[in-house]
């Protein structure tokens, strides 16, 4: 039995009477890449916000690395790195300044923060633009800075909420390779995306969410096997079969 690094039990969250997350439970093993998939508005981001201590669940509880999110948010925060779906950057500052600042916020000293910032920017192919103002960056570059920040302090658990949205294939590939590298280093990752091929390649297990609940959870291979020959059907086929073809808002 592998060690359970994250356990979420029966999470509920509603906004103004609408159930965004309506009874979600799952656990993630140490070193695992876990994909949280689902159509728009399924409740993925809301789930991540609860897991990362910024939103208090209406009901249910969460433990990460043995720390309860409700009782010991600080203990949880010491373990996690978060790359939010929406860019969260100080655009008036340079990429370097952004990384160093958030590095200091996760407890690095000045020297460590600078060294890590440089190596992460290098990893993201942004070394030569380190001193450039983020304001002037392209969408793809901003996405890469957004991800690089999440890596500061080498968190044990990384949350990536649609970190490849709106970027060109080159940037996407760069981000993708970075995540693969992190996985190979043994980082535990919770990952959301609308690119099913990405999830198929990266994730050890995926959960498919719709309307606030998890409707399927298994390895990509097992999910594909449920509807046909896993070498012929895609994860996208599974996704569409499970969530239907109606458009979401």
């Amino acid at each position, binding site marked *: 039995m592998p060690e359970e690094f994250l356990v979420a039990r029966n999470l509920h969250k509603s*906004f103004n009477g609408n159930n965004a997350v309506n009874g979600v439970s799952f656990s993630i093993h140490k070193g695992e890449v876990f994909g949280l998939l689902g159509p728009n508005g399924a409740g993925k981001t809301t789930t991540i916000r609860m897991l990362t201590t910024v939103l208090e669940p209406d009901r249910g509880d969460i433990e990460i690395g043995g720390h309860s999110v409700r009782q010991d948010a600080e203990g949880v925060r010491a373990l996690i790195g*978060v790359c939010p779906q929406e860019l969260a950057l100080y655009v008036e500052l340079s990429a370097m300044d952004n990384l160093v600042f958030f590095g200091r916020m996760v407890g690095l000293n000045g020297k460590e923060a600078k060294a890590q910032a440089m190596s992460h920017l290098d990893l993201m192919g942004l070394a030569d633009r380190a001193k450039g103002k983020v304001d002037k960056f392209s969408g793809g570059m901003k996405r890469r800075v957004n991800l690089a920040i999440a890596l500061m302090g080498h968190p044990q658990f990384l949350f990536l909420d649609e970190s490849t949205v709106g970027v060109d294939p080159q940037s996407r590939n760069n981000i993708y390779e970075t995540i693969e590298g992190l996985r190979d280093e043994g980082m535990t990752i919770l990952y959301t995306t609308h690119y099913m091929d990405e999830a198929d390649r990266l994730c050890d297990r995926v959960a498919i969410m719709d309307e606030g609940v998890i409707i399927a959870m298994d390895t990509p291979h097992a999910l594909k096997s449920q509807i046909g020959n896993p070498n012929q059907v895609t994860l996208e086929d599974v996704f569409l079969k499970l969530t239907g073809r109606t458009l979401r808002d």
Partner: protein
Amino acid sequence: MNAILVALLEIRAYLRDKGGLAFSLLLPIAIFALMYGAFGGQEQFHGTAYVVDEDQGGIYSARLIEQMDELDELDVELLSRSDADDRLEHSDLYLVLYIPQGFSDKLTTDEKLPLTFKQRSNGGQEGQIVASMVRGLAEEINQGLQVQNQVEDALAESGIGGEKVEITVQKFLDREREHPIVGIEEISVGSSPDPVNQFLPGIVTMFVLFSITLTARTLVEERKKGTLERLFTTRLSVGQLFAGKFLANVSRGFVQTLILFALAYAVFQKFTPLSFGSSLVIALVFAAAASALGLVIAAVVRTEDQATWIGVFFTMAMTMLGGTFFEISEGTMMETISRFSVNTYANEAFYTVIARGGTLADVGFEIAVVAGVAVVALIIARSLFKVAQEGK
């Protein structure tokens, strides 16, 4: 430590924001220069008397004009009747003195001709003052003539000639003017009407308070762009964030005041080293109050626009009530209301140490009030503050 890092980040962003810098430093200098220009040169009244003199060759009209010209407060400008009528018609002038033809000759007869003031509406403030000065001078001439007539009448039998009486009486009157029996001395009481002292504290506190808008905006902006939420997935606590923002804004308000006062020190020599030091202490406390109030606004508003408008409205209200632009008289309703403005206390404290040579001990009460506002506002802001924006 985290708090200081947050503060440094904020200050760095502020220094990169050229518009914010200009607003908080250049604008107060410009406004002060404007106020100084508008009110600074007008401590002593100075006006122009426009005169149409049709009494050509008359000795009394000449004397009147000469005496008007001798007054420091008055310049005399002679106009032709048509010119004067024209300029009155076009509101170019508000008040003109007409001296009719034959004025001097008729003065000693029974059918005297009056001096005429022609004015648009009430003649304007300057016109009214000019008119009353002219009235005073005319009255003097009048009295001189009356004395002369009485003396002449009394001496009529003695056979002493009119001309001799006139010369003698004039000599007495001239001497009386130079050494009046009832002397008038002017002493300015209470606040010296020095425009620097009058406007400097108010304008400085106004702009320090304006920075509450910046304080409020930065937090709202951070919430909106997600950095705030992101910060709270790190080890930064809400308390540290608050301390950091507070620190950044206190420093900004303080440096703002420091620069403005240092300029006033250099340009107007309004300070002594002691009053400068005391002023900086007051500035620090006031910056703390302003910053804390900014955090309260930041905690309640949801958008940057709300932050701006509430900030501006609040600042203007406090500024007006603080007596920045007009003096608030004692014992009035306005004075009671002004007690609700932090600026009132800060302005009073500044004024006391800068203009009256007071020490910090003299303004202990004012400083305590401002510090109290800072503490209460901080507590309120902290309890109202929410990290995540839940209801979109």
